[in-house]
């Protein structure tokens, strides 16, 4: 494309934007004096801004197209190569562990609390990654399993005095049961249809919790959920916060370990095969129903355990914590981070939960930024921040 055409396109774009933003950027009605302020300088700003942005936009797109051809050969990005280097693995793990161990002692309780929430979402993201990233089942009601875990701890504790450590596996198992319950009727569905049904399932769980007062105490929720104990020792507020932080870190490590193992196993490969082609995988001897149900159950298990931890951390839960919005956030962490990629999902979850916390000053702009980042990601890095790399196998004769 010639420079002249480029200029013409950018001018058209800027004129179009000036026209679109005219009512909100230029006209301002002064309701006191009943006059209209014409803010023409805004129009100029919009025009110049969109002119240059559209230039930049097309430059980036062009660069991406050229890069795409080259990248096929060059292959991996910097981070991907870093993750594959064996010699960086040990120092990397040591550095990350030291940072996580020291984190609550260096930073304030407030920071530790935020980090704990972010790590809970890391667990949720990794759990959903089993269902979406590995098995390719688009689930939109994931927060429902999170709710199942949280409520199972809260209710078991309220009625039977069950402690945190007993509730943790029970929450996971109950969520897995619900996972199978949801999975069974939707075995035949894929893609958009599956997303809609699971979205409905998530809403059903939330609405039941909200309206069945005798069971779940409705919107007022359940309070005074005990924090996790440690051999019955009394702990101060601060120690408990740190203690919960370490529990979540352990849960994250456990999750990474399990998912890494699952990913490179017979089951993990069967999931990926089902994602790619259902008929062919059945012709290879893969039991579609069993394999899919396993993905649902395992994905839900982690949401359930994260739910138990969440309930013990906040000591209060109500249905408002498990809305569609939570499901969408978890889905975004997986998509943004990189489907199927463990490092990607962790990075995505930390980014999506921590950034809004620190961007509280920007108020409502958070949502716009959030949307814009997602759109830009889909265009420039459709595979996510850290794309998944298939494992290669060594063979010696």
């Amino acid at each position, binding site marked *: 494309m010639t420079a002249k055409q480029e200029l013409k396109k950018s001018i058209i774009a800027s004129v179009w934007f000036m026209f679109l933003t005219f009512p909100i950027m230029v006209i301002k009605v002064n309701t006191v004096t009943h006059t209209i302020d014409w803010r023409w300088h805004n129009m100029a700003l919009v025009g110049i801004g969109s002119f240059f942005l559209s230039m930049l936009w097309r430059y980036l797109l062009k660069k991406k197209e050229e890069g795409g051809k080259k990248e096929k050969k060059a292959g991996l990005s910097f981070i991907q190569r870093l993750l594959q280097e064996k010699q960086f693995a040990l120092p990397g793990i040591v550095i990350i562990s030291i940072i996580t161990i020291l984190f609550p002692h260096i930073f304030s309780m407030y920071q530790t609390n935020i980090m704990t929430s972010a790590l809970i979402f890391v667990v949720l993201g990794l759990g959903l990654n089993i269902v979406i990233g590995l098995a390719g089942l688009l689930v939109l009601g994931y927060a429902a399993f999170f709710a199942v875990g949280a409520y199972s701890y809260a209710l078991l504790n309220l009625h039977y005095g069950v402690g945190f450590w007993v509730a943790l596996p029970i929450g996971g198992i109950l969520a897995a049961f619900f996972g199978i319950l949801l999975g069974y009727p939707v075995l035949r569905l894929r893609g958009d249809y599956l997303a809609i049904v699971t979205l409905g399932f998530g809403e059903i769980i939330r609405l039941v919790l909200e309206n069945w007062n005798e069971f779940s105490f409705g919107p007022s929720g359940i309070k005074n959920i005990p924090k996790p104990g440690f051999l019955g020792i009394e702990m101060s507020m601060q120690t408990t916060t740190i203690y919960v932080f370490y529990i979540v870190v352990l849960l994250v490590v456990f999750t990474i370990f*399990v998912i890494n*193992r*699952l990913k490179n*196993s*017979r*089951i*993990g*490969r*069967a999931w*990926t*095969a089902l*994602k*790619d*082609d259902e*008929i*062919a*995988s*059945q*012709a*290879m*001897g*893969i*039991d*579609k129903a069993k394999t899919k149900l*396993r993905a649902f159950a*395992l994905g839900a298990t982690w949401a359930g355990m994260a739910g138990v931890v969440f309930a013990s951390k906040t000591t209060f839960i109500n249905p408002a914590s498990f809305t569609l919005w939570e499901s969408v956030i978890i889905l975004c962490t997986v998509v943004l981070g990189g489907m199927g990629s463990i490092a990607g999902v962790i990075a995505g979850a930390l980014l999506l939960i921590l950034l809004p916390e620190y961007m509280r000053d920007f108020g409502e702009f958070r949502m716009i930024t959030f949307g814009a980042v997602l759109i830009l990601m889909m265009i420039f890095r459709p595979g996510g921040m850290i794309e998944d790399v*298939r494992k*290669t*196998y060594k*063979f010696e004769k």
Partner: protein
Amino acid sequence: MKPILEVKSMTMDFGGLRAIDNVDLSIEKGQIVALIGPNGAGKTTFFNCITGIYTPTHGDIYISPNGSEDGKNERINGLKPNIVTRKGLARTFQNIRLFTSMTVLENVMIGCHAITKAGIMGAIFRGASTKSEEKLIVEKSYLILEKIGLSKYVDELAVNLPYGAQRRLEIARALATDPFLLLLDEPAAGMNPQETMELDELILKIRNSEGISILLIEHDMKLVMSLSEKIYVVDYGKKIAEGTPEEIRHNPVVIKAYLGEEVDA
């Protein structure tokens, strides 16, 4: 000798459409059998019925894996596709259906799914049995790729393979399920003459070295005539002829089905 696959008066209806009408077919151990017919004759539907994707409306399908006289017959109508594969019938697809996001080796490793059994707990704890099973899968898959002549592509993503290699990979993947009968749906479609010749050799090699019987659908008559020991011809869902390549070549009914009838002026 008993046939290893015996199809008795199989019929498949889709609503009012009879896609397969009362077809019989039998394959002996170690035989290469071809199923030919004009487009839309019902060949792929026939495959789908045998491999469990469809359940035939009428008729029976029996298998007897080792083909010996005292071996027992097993009826496989209406079994799920994954069960049929476990029983030893492996297939390839007319429109290539590889696992595109996986490497070539992993594609073949999936084929081993039917003959291995590690579950979730095995995957998480990775005990001795799982480890040795994994090792076996990798080894076996690699050897199959070597035999098929794809070992240079091992770590390549399956989608990045040239067309002919993708077709061969489908065969490799099917072989990994340890079949006694291999069903090939137009394996030479879209191949150039050189690739077709290599395929011809490959199919013979599979049959001769492993004793795997082969049922093949193919439009390339040269390949069919040189390979097969027995040919079945179907048209509009009905079997119109069966016999050796020589008999089929001169059968007037077959010629009519393919070229149409002569009209007197």
